């Protein structure tokens, strides 16, 4: 293997002789040195000669970047009105240089990002239009879902039970351990925090009411929905988005399968069954957690806890929480699918829409929870 040791230092010198400028280049005009070479080319001052002779005899090596910078040097001097003559171009590089000369990229313009008030207004406007489009997309997919459901009611064999069961297994059964653990801890924490303050008024026993009502009406379903949005909503978006990226969705269309029926419906139905189920498990776990802390921290034995709980709760308390679950599931499923279908070609877009899916569905879950709170207050439950 030959070892090239550069014998000539990297240099670009100019020597004026009357109207002729002799420019001598030397060194390795390679990509590694491109920055230095560019600086030399840019800072070279030849004055205003009528003719320039470029001597390349001392150039040891050259690659595309060197050839391009040579081309730029030539163009710069021609721009000054000089005739340029290239001397002693090493034979090995003639083809490269002539190849580069046939390409003329347009004059370089630096890219700048505009930051102005107009830009701010533009971005805000775009966002609002985007929100409008989202609403249309969600209602569109909801409408399609209803149509598909009606179709399924007329032809019950069209429902994809296996697919529903598979999605239920992943989104529902798979989430049980984490939901139970989370709710158990939250129930315990509520009991401890509530007890800490209520004890000062000697109202220890109302911790049971606090835990029972809070968990069954609000916390149980809300926390479970948030966990499901983060766990299954993101998975739905990523799956559908990846299918969209690889034209699998288009393939389904072409085969004549209805995407809403095949992909969206099983997921949404599975989620609408799974979320109430998870909520029940979550509620139970939170009550157990609360009872355990009440026993250890507030000395309320389990039997008394059960008695107080029975006094504090009615069937309505439980139903207030559970009623919300299918609606939240519907929203999580719809948002996840809409975001999934919005994914475009790049992996970045997949990431963006998965994030958006989780953020939007958690936000919507909380909004819906608020609406339900107003509704239940209105009807006096």
């Amino acid at each position, binding site marked *: 293997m030959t070892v090239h040791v550069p014998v000539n230092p990297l240099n670009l010198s100019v020597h004026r002789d009357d109207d002729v400028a002799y420019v001598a280049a030397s060194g*390795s005009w390679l*990509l590694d040195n491109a920055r230095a070479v560019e600086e030399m080319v840019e800072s070279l001052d030849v004055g205003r000669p009528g003719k320039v002779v470029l001597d390349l005899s001392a150039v040891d090596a050259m690659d*595309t970047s060197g050839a391009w910078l040579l081309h730029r040097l030539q163009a710069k001097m021609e721009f000054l009105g000089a005739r340029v003559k290239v001397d002693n171009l090493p034979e090995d590089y003639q083809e490269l240089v002539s190849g580069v000369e046939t390409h003329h990229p347009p004059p370089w313009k630096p890219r700048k990002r505009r930051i102005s008030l107009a830009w701010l207004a533009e971005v805000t406007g775009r966002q609002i239009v985007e929100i409008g489009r989202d609403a249309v997309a969600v209602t569109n997919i909801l409408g399609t879902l209803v149509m598909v459901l009606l179709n399924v009611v007329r032809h019950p064999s069209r429902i994809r039970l296996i697919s529903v069961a598979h999605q239920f297994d992943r989104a529902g059964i798979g989430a049980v351990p984490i939901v139970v653990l989370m709710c158990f801890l939250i129930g315990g924490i509520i009991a401890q925090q509530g007890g800490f303050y209520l004890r000062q008024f000697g109202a220890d026993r109302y911790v049971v009411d606090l835990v029972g009502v809070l968990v069954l009406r609000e916390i149980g379903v809300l926390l479970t929905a948030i966990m499901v949005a983060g766990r299954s909503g993101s998975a739905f978006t990523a799956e559908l988005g990846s299918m969209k990226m690889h034209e699998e969705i288009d393939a389904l269309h072409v085969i004549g399968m209805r995407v809403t029926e095949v992909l969206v419906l099983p997921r949404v139905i599975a989620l609408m069954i799974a979320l109430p189920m998870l909520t029940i498990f979550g509620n139970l776990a939170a009550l157990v957690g609360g009872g355990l802390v009440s026993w250890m921290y507030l000395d309320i034995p389990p039997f008394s806890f059960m008695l107080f709980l029975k006094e504090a709760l009615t069937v309505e308390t439980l139903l207030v929480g559970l009623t919300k679950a299918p609606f939240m599931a519907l929203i999580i499923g719809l948002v996840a699918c809409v975001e999934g279908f919005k994914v475009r070609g790049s992996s970045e877009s997949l990431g963006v829409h998965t994030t958006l899916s989780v953020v939007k569905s958690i936000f919507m879950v909380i909004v819906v929870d608020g609406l339900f709170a107003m509704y239940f207050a209105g009807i006096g439950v």
Partner: protein
Amino acid sequence: MQAQTISKGARFLAPSKGDIVLQARGVTVGFGDTLVLENLDLDVIAGEILGFVGASGTGKSVLMRAILGLTPMRRGTVEVFGQVLKTLSDAGRAEVERRWGVLFQQGALFSSLNVRQNIQVPMREHLKLSPRLMDELALLKIEMVGLPRDAAEKFPSELSGGMIKRASLARALALDPAIVFLDEPTSGLDPIGAAAFDELIMQLRDALGLTVYMVTHDLDSLHTTCDRIAVLGEKRVLVEGPMDTMLAFDHPWVRSYFHGTRGARRND
């Protein structure tokens, strides 16, 4: 300032014509109980275009991936530019990686970057260049591989199959490598596009002094562009040499490949 800037650029990795750029000895690769390659030897000579053929599933891509260090080898050594890859330090390996370019079968362009940014990824990673020079060089490469100028700002998802191959070749050439690995560069292209791609590879070889390692199934490519052909079969290189050697070689697969109906048309 000039003298010290060269030191790193001293191209100990610049092969001259006729040197052995890549030398594989006793390469053995297996998955689980099955060996895909066993005691495989291969030489690639500077400045040549080596075509690599073999039946589907004989491990052409596995060999390329093993050479590139993407698939671990059970035994054997690979020397690139005279450096043994296995024992090379991180810095030495980076220097070798800077001197090779790879065109993956599916292009493997970064989908969240446009073509210009894709080409600039290796430049940004390995060199400190001014934004102007990087943009100009990227455009130059885009034109050299025969893409229209407005492809620079397009994203991979907006490109056709042939354009993806060209853009990917432009990225492989971003650092003016000494050797490029092409995995089925003409598959999926129409015959005219494939012929133009072959022509392009020959032009670039002549202009940039490239060495080309090309995995291909395209008999036309083998005939028109390749200086040497290597046939992979029975877990090793069955035969290597110019086209005439292939035609004369007596092995059932090699015979049916080069003398089959598709091959016969060419040989008339």
